């Protein structure tokens, strides 16, 4: 082969690569334009997306985009309805669908798993002006999201001494975290190390603190609830623990102030000593005992 023909071969290859890149960019633009017309429909975005589409007398380009828009919003709304059924009951399907359309614009879904979508709905509801009168709605949504998270949370590993060391070594290699131990190992902790103990709350657990009786609101809106439907906002605040127990399944526990602070401290990774100094030492032993009995705490590190 001559130098000339080599050179033109290289040029041809470069040209091919460039063309492929241009075509990929063109595909990306088509998909981005389509996305805009679905989630941010206005005259401009719809016009732009329509340029790619073959319209007919029976169904224009815009009609065809609408079929997809309805299908997409319907699917996502159905997904969120599954996660937030009480919110849907409280505001009605139509209202909820309207709220979701706005939520989607501000918080696009970043995960292929529809079950991961909805985390920010409580935040969106809190600043959603038309729902302002429903002061408790955002906190009910928080409770439902916490329930959904607990339902899907990883199971607690049955920590034997061996599995504890092998499973968690990877993590501790990255961070200087001491190894998790099962509670049966507590006997081997020297007394002067007690303040340094960090109890680990099961990973399904989260806390909800609300100025409104959201637990009661949530309860009366369960399908199997048999009782009076009225809830007075005067019932006041709710401090709740939402979690999944290996023995009892899904749970929502109402907490008193001490319990709430204690578990909050544990979730923040504080040591037993720190929590004990911060507040309520008189109740601490009893609360810890209860948490252990319930299975909320199954392991610790020192």
């Amino acid at each position, binding site marked *: 082969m001559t130098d000339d023909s080599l050179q033109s071969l290289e040029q041809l290859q470069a040209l091919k690569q460039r063309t492929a890149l241009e075509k990929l960019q063109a*595909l990306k633009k088509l998909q981005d334009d389509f*996305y805009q017309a679905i989630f941010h429909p206005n005259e401009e975005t719809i016009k732009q997306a329509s340029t790619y589409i073959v319209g007919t007398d029976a169904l224009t380009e815009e009609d065809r985009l609408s079929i997809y828009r309805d299908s997409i919003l319907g699917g996502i709304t159905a997904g969120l309805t599954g996660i937030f059924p009480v919110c849907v009951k409280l505001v009605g399907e139509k209202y909820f669908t309207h709220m979701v359309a706005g939520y989607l614009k501000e918080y696009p879904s970043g995960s292929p798993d529809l079950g991961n979508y909805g985390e920010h709905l409580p935040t969106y509801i809190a600043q959603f002006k038309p729902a302002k009168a429903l002061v408790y709605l955002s906190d009910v949504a928080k409770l439902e999201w916490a329930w959904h998270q607990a339902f899907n949370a990883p199971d607690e590993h049955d920590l034997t001494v061996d599995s504890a060391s092998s499973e968690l070594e990877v993590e501790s290699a990255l961070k200087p975290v001491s190894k998790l131990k099962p509670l049966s190992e507590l006997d081997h902790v020297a007394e002067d190390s007690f303040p340094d103990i960090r109890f680990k709350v099961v990973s399904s657990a989260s806390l909800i603190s609300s100025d409104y009786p959201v637990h009661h609101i949530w309860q009366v809106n369960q399908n199997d609830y048999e009782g009076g439907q009225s809830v007075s906002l005067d019932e006041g605040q709710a401090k709740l623990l939402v979690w999944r127990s290996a023995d009892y399944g899904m749970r929502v526990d109402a907490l008193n102030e001490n319990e709430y602070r204690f578990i909050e401290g544990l979730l923040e990774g504080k040591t037993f000593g720190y929590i004990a100094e911060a507040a309520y030492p008189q109740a601490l032993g009893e609360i810890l005992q209860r948490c252990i009995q319930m299975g909320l705490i199954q392991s610790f590190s020192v």
Partner: protein
Amino acid sequence: MNERRFKHQSIAGVGLGLRSSHYQEVFNTQPDVPWFELLSDNYMAEGGLPILRAEKIREDYPITLHGVGMSLGAADPLNIDYLSRLKALVNRLEPVYVSDHLAWVSTSAHYTHDLLPFPYTEFTLKHISERINQAQEFLGRELLVENPSSYLNFHATEMSEWEFIQGICKSTDCNLLIDINNIYVSAMNHGFDPYEYLSAIPADRVKEIHLAGYEKMEHYLFDTHGYQVHPPVWALYQAAIKRFGAIPTLIEWDTDIPDFTTLRAEALKAEMIMTEVA
């Protein structure tokens, strides 16, 4: 192959798409269903009750995993995090088949959670073939790729959907999941002959068939997976079984999910056709 945990490692006959509302019934009655299809995207969390239930089902039944999250038709790079989680799920549940669609669901890392069409061109054929190969390599196993239903055509399209599928079969070694309802819905929406489509599909690649119900709208058919299978789809299914043989078939029902008895009645119809024709 590595040592397998579960005894059922192949599927035959007419299976059912398993939805969460049916779990209790399946656990209680141990129905005589040959296999179940699970939506992989519902079991992607690393733990939780869904996966525990799925494992319990897997003890007694062969399963397939069907997903919508791979976004094979997207211009974005493949989502490696998604593929990693899918791979972990595959290792955990040992599905007989893993399938996804000829469609895109995401762009610029934003997900629509719905199957969207793309133009069928020489470029997209090459692009998607490469992605199928990448995904198969990453997962360490073959994929089944499913034909979607669609409501629009692109000016840029250079070939028919069946020509595109023929091309995919030439440039990859993936197999096919043929959705008979989707063929019919698209045929009516775009005015092509569903039997011509069917006769163009490489028969040796078809490993699974889907059946579902559409909704008749004023100017188009809408694929809701929310109804019984319609008569023209049964007729097309008959032709498919004649051409492909007794390929494992699934009744899919995703919206307005009926009770388990209704689902099984649909499966029985498919079984009758399968036995008669094949």
